[in-house]
């Protein structure tokens, strides 16, 4: 099966490109990026603030069941062109990943479909590679935790 989401990350570069075609009209794809309620659902996080306009800013936050903050991110919107383009910064707080620049481009395709191209630029090659490896490392940790959990029950 062909992969719908493509990642293009060249060796030794501090940027990457994510592309995806959606079976959705352009307006709905764009709306999913600016409506706080929808962003919250898609990202699985709370949206504390999302001002979708030039010079606007946003804040995302996730707490665990005990009320500890486990994820917090923020950024500023630099360019806002409805149904076409959003340029913004993204910073995951309390992580070594720095601030990244994100350029989202929205394009209509034939037959009521649409395409998103995300161009993400990091401070350094090392930071980009760290971000790329994060879900890989989490996958392994999750697997180990799960094994430990099962092993714990067997005792």
């Amino acid at each position, binding site marked *: 099966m062909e*992969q*719908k*989401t*493509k*990642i293009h*990350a060249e060796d030794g570069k501090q940027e990457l490109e*994510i592309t*995806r075609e*959606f*079976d*959705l009209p352009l307006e*709905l*794809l764009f*709306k*999913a990026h600016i409506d706080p309620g*929808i962003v919250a*659902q*898609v*990202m699985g996080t709370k949206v504390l603030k999302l001002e979708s306009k030039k010079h606007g800013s946003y804040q995302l936050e996730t707490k665990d069941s005990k009320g500890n903050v486990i994820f917090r991110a923020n950024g500023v919107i630099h360019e806002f062109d409805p149904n076409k383009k959003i340029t913004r910064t993204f910073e995951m707080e309390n992580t070594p990943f720095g601030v990244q620049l994100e350029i989202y481009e929205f394009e209509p395709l034939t037959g009521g479909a649409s395409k*998103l191209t995300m161009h993400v630029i990091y401070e350094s090659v090392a930071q980009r590679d760290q*971000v*790329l*490896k*994060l*879900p*890989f490392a*989490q*996958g*392994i940790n*999750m*697997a*180990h935790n*799960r*094994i430990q959990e099962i092993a714990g029950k067997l005792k």
Partner: protein
Amino acid sequence: MNLRRDVFQALADPTRRAILLLLVASPAMTAGAIASNFDTARPTVSKHLQILTACELLHQAQNGREVHYHLNPQKMKEIGDFIEPFRKMWEDRFDKLETIMKKYPSKK
């Protein structure tokens, strides 16, 4: 459950890694033949095979009355690629977005 089909969970277990190695050495084996290589109880080995099949590391093929297990080279290649989990994270997010937005107009 999502976790069960996680390739990384599958690989975190030493018995499952040994099963994959066995199938590299001999490309088609029945569950019985695989189990005979381990001291573990047969149902435990079956469980491991089930997990490996669920996350698509193994394929099953009916061969007369026997079911043979094969490696899925495509999936094995994916694991070698550390970017795959990152891609999968975005894919899941975008799939969710698509599902939510397909329902969107009817909610209004």
